[in-house]
C-alpha cells in the first residue's frame, strides 16, 4: 500500500502539493516513486520561472526512463530542493519529505481545490 498523506493535494499525473499560505511545495507521490524505482537524476525548474498548471517543468529519471513532472497548479518557482539534486534517491526514500522538488508562489489559490484529495488519489491508484 502506498503512503497517501491526508494533508496533501494530488494531481492525476502523480505530483503532490502541500499548501502553506500562498506557497505550494511540490513532489512526486509515494506511488509514483514506487513505480519509477531507483531515481538517479532530477532536473528542476529555474527559480523565478512562471509555471502554468499542468506545464511540464521538471524531469525525474530512473535507471530505465525519464519522466516529466507537471506543475499541479500555476505559480512562480521560489525555491528548488538542492538536497534532491545532490541525492536523487531522496525521491525514493522520502517522497513526501526530504525528497520534495520545488516550491512556488501560487498564482491562483482557487486552483488548489480542483486537485484530488487523499481519498480520491487513493482511488485513482487503485488503492481506494
Amino acid at each position: 500500500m502506498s503512503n497517501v498523506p491526508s494533508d496533501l493535494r494530488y494531481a492525476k499525473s502523480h505530483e503532490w502539493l502541500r499548501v502553506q499560505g500562498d506557497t505550494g511545495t511540490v513532489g512526486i507521490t509515494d506511488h509514483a516513486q514506487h513505480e519509477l524505482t531507483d531515481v538517479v537524476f532530477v532536473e528542476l525548474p529555474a527559480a523565478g520561472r512562471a509555471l502554468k498548471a499542468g506545464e511540464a517543468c521538471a524531469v525525474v529519471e530512473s535507471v530505465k526512463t525519464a519522466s516529466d513532472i507537471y506543475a499541479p497548479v500555476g505559480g512562480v518557482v521560489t525555491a528548488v530542493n538542492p538536497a534532491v539534486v545532490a541525492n536523487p534517491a531522496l525521491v525514493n526514500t522520502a517522497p513526501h519529505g526530504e525528497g520534495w522538488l520545488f516550491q512556488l508562489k501560487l498564482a491562483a489559490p482557487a486552483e488548489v481545490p480542483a486537485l484530488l484529495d487523499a481519498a480520491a488519489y487513493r482511488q485513482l491508484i487503485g488503492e481506494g
Partner: protein
Amino acid sequence: MLKRTSLFAAHQLLGGRLVEFGGWEMPVQYTSITEEHLAVRQAAGLFDIAHMGEFSVTGPGATAFLNHTLTNNVNRLDAGQGQYTLLCNERGGVVDDLYAYRLAADDYLLIVNASRIEADWDWLQGQVDLCPAHDGFQLSDRSEETGAVAVQGPRVAAFINQAVPGGSISGTMVPHVTDLKKNQIGGFVFQGIPIYIGRTGYTGEDGFELVVPATVTEAVWNALLAAGRPFGLKPAGLGARDTLRTEMCYPLYGHELDEETTPIEAGLGHFVALDKGDFVGRATLAEQKAGGVRQRCVAFRMTDKSAPPRPHYPIWSTGATAAAIGEVTSGTQSPSLGAGVGMGYVPADLARPGTEIAVEIRGRRAPAVIVAKPIYRPPAPTVAAKVS
C-alpha cells in the same frame, strides 16, 4: 495479444512488473533494477529468457549450411562448444546476432533474439536453396516447445550443482555442471528430463544458460531459486539484463545492430571468419575489414554529473567546429559505476578512446568521453570460483 513464457505465473507470484518486449510480456524488474543488477555483479541473478528463439540444424549438411549463412566458423567448434556469431544479409547488414552451439558433429542449436525469430526463420529458409550444399540438413524452429533461463553471477558456481546434480550425458562430458568451461555446453538430466546447459551469458559475469523443454521451465526456475537464495540469488528482470549488457558493451539487436549495420562497424570483427571461405555478406565485410569503415560503434561515459544518456540522443563533437556526429544506441545510468554510460555510432576518425564528445540531453550538450570496451570490467574470478 502479447505472448507469455511458461514462467508468467512465477513472475506474477514474485511481484514482477510486466512490460512488452519484442511481442512478449516480460518482467522488467521485480524489486529494483539497481538491486537486481548489483545482485548479479556481487552474487547471482536469475533471468527468464524463454522468449528467445531456438532453431535446430541437423544432418551431414548442417555445418556447410551454417558456415554459408553465419559469419563465424562453426568448424572451430568441437561437439559441446558454442560461439557468438552473426547472421548477415548480402550487404553485410546484420539480420540477427546469436549463439551457435554444436551439440554433436551434425547437430547444432541456435539461440536467436525473440524479436527476430520470424525474420531469422524466413531468412534462413530463403538461404536453403542458395547454399552451395543445399541438402543433407534439416532446419527446425523449436522456439514454441523450448524454454530457457539464465543464471548469472560470481556465486552461481557455488549452488548450480545442487539444482542440477549429476554429470552430462551429451555434448561436453563432465562430472558436474560446474566442470563446464566458458562456451561449453552439455546435456544434463533434470528430474528425469534431458536439458542443455551452456556456460555463457549476457552479463559479463560467470554463469550458465539452461535450455529446457517448456514443460519443465518453471521447475528448473524454482530449483535454481531454491538452491541460490542462500547465496544471494535474486530473480532479475530485463531492466537489469539491459544495464548489465550495456556495461559490458554487448550489442542488443535493434539498438547497436540492424540490417543496415555491419558487424565490422559494430566492432564485432572478431566474430567474422573471413578465412573460412565464402559466406553471405563476405564481400562487404572483407572490404570493410581491409579498407576500414565510415562509422564505428563506440562506448562512452558521461564526464560530469548529468541525466543518463538514452537511445536516440544526438552525439556531438566538441570544440570550435562542434557538430552532431551520431546518435546514442544504448544508454543508461550504470549501477556499477554510478555514472551515465552508453554506446553509439560516430565517424571512424572520431572513435578513438579518450576522444571528448557531448551527448545532447533535452537540448543541452553534456560532456562525455569515448572509453575502451567494456565500460565495466568485472573483477577476476576468486580462487574458489576457479576451483569449482
